[in-house]
């Protein structure tokens, strides 16, 4: 599979070039381009494209299996988390991933980004990826500026572009005044802002967010959703692990991880996005998330 050029230093996204990318498992990919059916509930239905997409998926996961095995031979027990999860994400769609605590959402996301190896299954794609993990996996003793410098280097960005993007994101998420602070001296909410901004630094084609707004204040929470709307409008594919019922209307699709597999939720996708702006979620809900 050919690589698309890295768009880290470009203001434009590479989504338009992604649409025709073939995938290794393309024989199992639905050619449907219409909205997901509201009545679907089978375990493989989490791969239906979003309502606004006519192109192919930006990435595909097939038959993902993961079991956490105990290292204790007698008293320990294995925990089967994923039992053949399928997932596809299309350019310009925003997908919610829901599920009970311990259902394996974070495990799935770690497998999707390559932080964790699956026991079985495939993940195929050809896009730049931004990952915002649930825990702020950052270096405590580096300043926010230094953190961006390091991750900019990891993404292969130029120094100037890192600064531009850092300042853009800091302004957007309101942590400009903390750029010279060490990460371990930030509040939980500000640390989470940096955690999110690191994932978005290189303008990835795909953004995978694991409960990204934990600890956000209300204003930042709203700014976050405005930011995601803009990203989606630019063609970025976004998957968000969420626990808030009130947020489901913000998604094109909602998939539920249950019994180790992803199931499409019966959500009316199209009107949801327009209604999302009218969401009446409370700031308390954000804090509790």
């Amino acid at each position: 599979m050919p690589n698309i050029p890295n768009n880290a230093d470009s203001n434009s996204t590479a989504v338009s070039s992604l649409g025709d990318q073939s995938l290794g498992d393309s024989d199992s990919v639905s050619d449907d381009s219409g909205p997901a059916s509201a009545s679907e509930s089978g375990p493989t239905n989490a791969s239906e494209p979003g309502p606004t997409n006519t192109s192919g998926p930006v990435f595909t996961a097939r038959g993902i299996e993961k079991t956490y095995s105990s290292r204790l031979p007698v008293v320990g027990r294995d925990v089967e988390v994923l039992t053949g999860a399928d997932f596809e994400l299309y350019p310009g769609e925003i997908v919610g991933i829901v599920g009970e605590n311990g259902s394996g959402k974070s495990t799935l996301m770690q497998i999707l980004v390559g932080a964790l190896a699956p026991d079985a299954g495939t993940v195929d794609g050809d896009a730049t990826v931004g990952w915002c993990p649930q825990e702020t996996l950052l270096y405590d003793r580096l300043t926010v500026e230094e953190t961006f410098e390091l991750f900019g280097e990891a993404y292969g960005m130029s120094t100037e572009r890192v600064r531009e993007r850092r300042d853009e994101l800091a302004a957007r998420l309101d942590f400009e005044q903390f750029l010279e602070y060490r990460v371990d001296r930030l509040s939980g909410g500000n640390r989470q802002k940096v955690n999110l901004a690191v994932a978005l630094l290189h303008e990835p084609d795909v953004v995978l967010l694991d409960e990204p707004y934990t600890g956000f204040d209300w204003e930042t929470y709203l700014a976050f959703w405005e930011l995601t709307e803009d990203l989606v409008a630019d063609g970025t594919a976004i998957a968000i692990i969420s626990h808030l019922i009130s947020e489901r209307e913000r998604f094109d699709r909602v998939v539920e991880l249950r019994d180790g597999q992803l199931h499409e939720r019966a959500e009316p996708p199209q009107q949801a996005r327009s209604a999302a702006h009218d969401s009446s979620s409370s700031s308390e809900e954000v804090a509790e998330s």
Partner: protein
Amino acid sequence: MSALGTATRLRVVELLRRPRTLVGLLVLPPVVVEMYGTALASFPQLPTLAAAPATVGRTTGALFAAAFLAGLVGLFQLLSARSGDERAAVAGLPRHTMLAARLVTVTLVAVAASVVTFTVLWLRVDVAAPGLAFASLVAAGLLYGLLGVFVGTVVPRELEGSIVLVFLADVDNALSSGLFPVELSVSLPVVGEVGVTDLAPLAHPQELFTTAVFEGTYASGHLAPTLAWMALSMAAALLAYSQSTGGSSHGLAGRVTDSLGRWAA
């Protein structure tokens, strides 16, 4: 600046923001050297000792201080940033670059600990070949810095990792000092019959060091084993580190996140 340059610079910055570590690097060497000297001062002058017991004690303490401090920094280098490294690897920073940056930092600490330790020792002991003695201390520090990285990846908790390292360094130093002769030997493939004492990681740096300090000569037969131990520790650290910072491979898919944080064929 290259990825390695940036990563190394930021690792050093992180280290310098650990005031307790820096204080430890300055305070512990003189304390350990003097404690060892005082502890052995009451020993009788045995024919197996190369110098007065207090002098031997200070020399042994110096090697322990340089090695253990570097090992401790190696351990905490890994523990403090393991999760960050995992994410940076997913973002595209090559694991070998991150590990190299950490090893450079450990090397700097090994040199710094050796400078402080050697200075303290030199003030108290007449060192016959200072250059050789200092190089031996650095070798011991590097060896334990690598072992610290290994312990940090295998036992990724501060308390347990520190305990393992303390016991390892303590037993190793006691065995290799020659103060407590152990007659036990084992038969190994290729090398044949080897004394247990010779298998202690610090045994050969210890010989290099004490020979340089007391005789002013180079114990050539101990250089290769020292380098072999360092190579072994390096390999163990590399393997453990690549395992502990997660799998970038999508395994069965045969696809790996490449250096730009994207999936590659």
